[in-house]
């Protein structure tokens, strides 16, 4: 799998990645690291326990990382969740809406991690 094929498969922005992420080796190295990033797991735990405050932090960081790696679809899902978790929007956020938004993130997150396994072997 090439990096271009990877980005196509996950709904990423390959041209953005290419313009910013120096070269293929750099790209692969940091994409590979994403597997070990704990933000998604922590985010999920917080939302399940209803801790929106801490959840915001993780969602925000996950958004930043996926933006940096040009994981377009994942970052868009993260933006939606982060915006909902940010004050003052958080005040009107229901648990149902939160799980719905998390579900969208999870879907993209799984696509990304599956493909990383293929890319990095």
């Amino acid at each position, binding site marked *: 799998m090439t990096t271009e094929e990877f980005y196509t498969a996950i709904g990423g922005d390959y041209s*953005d990645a290419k*313009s*910013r992420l*120096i070269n293929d080796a*750099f790209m692969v190295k*940091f994409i590979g*690291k*994403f597997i*070990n*990033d704990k*933000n998604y797991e922590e985010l999920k735990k917080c939302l399940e326990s209803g801790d929106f405050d801490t959840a915001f*932090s993780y969602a*925000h*960081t996950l*958004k*930043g*990382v996926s*933006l*940096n*790696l*040009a994981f377009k679809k994942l970052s868009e899902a993260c933006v939606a969740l982060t915006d909902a978790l940010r004050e003052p929007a958080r005040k009107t956020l229901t648990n149902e809406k939160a799980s719905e938004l998390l579900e969208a993130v999870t879907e993209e997150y799984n696509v990304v991690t599956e493909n990383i396994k293929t890319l990095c072997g």
Partner: protein
Amino acid sequence: METLQKRGILIVEDNDINREMLKEILSDSYHVTEACDGIEGLTKLRENLDRLSLVLLDMHMPRMNGYEFLEERKKDSLLCSVPVIVTTGSNITEAEEKSLSLGASDFVTKPYNPRIILRRIEAIIRLKESISSLEAIERDSVCGLYTKDAFYFHVSNGLRQTDKSFDMMMFYIEDYQHIAVRYGQNLTTDLIKYIAESIMKYDGVIACRYDQDKFFLLREHTECNHKELTKEFDINLHKNSPIPDFSIKYGIYNNIPHDIPLAEIYDRLSITVSEIKRQYDKNIALFDNEVIATTKRIRQIEECMEQALADGQFSVYYQPKHDAETGKISGAEALVRWIHPEYGFLSPGEFIPLFEQNGFITGLDFYVWEKVCNHIKMWLKENIPPVPISVNASRRDFIATDNLKKLTLPIEKNNIDKKYLHLEITESGDVNDNFLIEKIGKIRDTGINIELDDFGAGQSSLGTLCDIPLDVIKIDISFIRNLEKQKEIVRTIIALAHALGLKTVAEGVETEEQISILKSMGCDSLQGYYYSKPLPEYQFREYLKKELA
């Protein structure tokens, strides 16, 4: 080596991927230090302060976030010396504004674009470094006041832009070199810092350290009693000073004119202050218009002095000294005279102190020394037996490293006996310093006699007589003028000199009565108008011939 040459950047970012990405982007050009949150960031910033050129700060972090980091940094001006660029995950302008108001220099947004990040970092570091180097030129490294150049810049700019009246003041530490030798560099530096701090407490003043011993201050003119205020300042200054006995001379110039160069104002103030130099009862001098004439005169003299030396406008006159016992000529003092083609006869009382101040005296002293050697050689050639000639030396002459050579060379060149040459040194506050004593000792070792001029005047110390290698002391002219009243003092000086194996000379002798008193006291030689005024060489040689016939 490489890490020394690269500038240091501290990345404060909690997310591993983001941080490592930044590190990878930066490590080609910078030496990177990492921190995972604000607390660790502050610690690393403190530890590596002198190695860091920039902080790259994430806003969203556990434990201590970016805002809190900036708040903490603000409390410590040292930490503020390292600029911060904030990395924001979002493009919310409110967050950016907030970080800028907390002292961040710039921000970059995610996703990271290496080229943009590198360019912003470079721009901020360059800006910061150019400001710091400007500050370094602006401020005196010891005391933090403006430097001479910065003061000049700010004052001349300021004066140009306003019609307000200003007063300029000059503070001058007397005998600074002497203080530095006596108390050492550390205490002297403390004194400078202490004076600067006291100056900064003056309301509405801008000030600079002009020379090591000189400060200038500018203040908007107020109708107050400057003399009283300065007196009060001086009293307070001496209360907690790191060095107890120092003296500052204050010059005050009210309503300085805006239409003349600042350098001229400096000069006028320097002259104002120099007029109370060594006057122990006066430490504050007010500028008045007479100073302008003096300044002009000094300029005139300084402009033509070098040409005068080259043109031979300076000539040597000789004032005979006579043996008190036999009445026969026993020596002469060489005195310099300046006859300028345009200004005519210039008084040594005017130009000698000026030359001593501007350093020209050294060239003139050696010129006189050489002339005297030539004259002696000439007299010998014409079979006129010479007498020892005393030549004045300024203490500045001894600073020249080759001074010994400069003294001995003309003697050797003319092949004359060293016994014909005496060097007259003046007693002053710093004549005691070891450097000078050593130099004088070396000269005396060659066979040149050393005379101590003006003994008993000003800052005489009996200790001087033991410390400096001497042959003769010259009793200060003021004692001879008041001989009747100060008879006992003169008698004691002569007895003391003799007890120490030194000869004595009295100058300013004008009457028979003075001669008989001095003779009765055992004074060895007498010099003054009673015998002769100073004579040009052609007359002095006749005097010699007649005396020795």
